[in-house]
């Protein structure tokens, strides 16, 4: 039932390339909102990559880690958006 190594490397490499593209935008975004949008996309991609990592390492607990990561990141993004909108 183990996923083959090549497929794992391909999926994880594509995901990491996506994170790298978002990180370029987060580094050189002209405004604060650009950086926040890039970080928001990086959060979603990382949630998916954590589940893929759990499938490769055959650890079921990584799915729980991905769920907690998604919840905390959602709260964080909402908090920063409220701060940008009316100064918290």
């Amino acid at each position, binding site marked *: *039932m183990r996923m083959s190594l090549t497929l794992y490397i391909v*999926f994880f490499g594509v995901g990491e390339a*996506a994170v790298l593209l978002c990180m370029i935008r987060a580094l050189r975004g002209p*405004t604060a909102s650009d950086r926040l949008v890039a970080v928001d*996309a990086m959060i979603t*991609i990382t949630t*998916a990559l954590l589940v893929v990592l759990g499938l490769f390492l055959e650890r*079921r607990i990584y799915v729980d880690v991905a769920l907690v990561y998604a919840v905390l990141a*959602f709260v964080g993004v909402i908090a920063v958006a*409220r701060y940008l909108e009316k100064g918290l």
Partner: protein
Amino acid sequence: MTITSVIGALIMGFGAIFLFLGAFGILRLPDVYNRLQAGTKCTTLGAFCTIVGVGIAQPDWIFKALIVAVFVLLTNPISAHALARASYKSAVPLYDGTVVDKCREFGECEEVGGAAGASESDAGGEE
């Protein structure tokens, strides 16, 4: 490899392609709102397909994977809405090719100063 792992790998590959295209749109598109469009829709579908593909490839995990996938599917548009609203209210300029700004026309967003077309200084947003 069994048939479920093959189907799961196909769905995961579909999701990974969508994740990459969303990130590419974030790098390429001209202003915050277009970037938010690409970054939200593509990464939501990509993450949903990837996580459901993991659940199909490993059928013991389908319940937890569906919980994570539905959570991403529900909360990602909410955070995108909050981000777009915050960046409009904090007067982030729109792209110069924008032809209509209904929110400013109807006078619902008074606190935005010179959003559409008023500033030629940041054309395109790219170097």
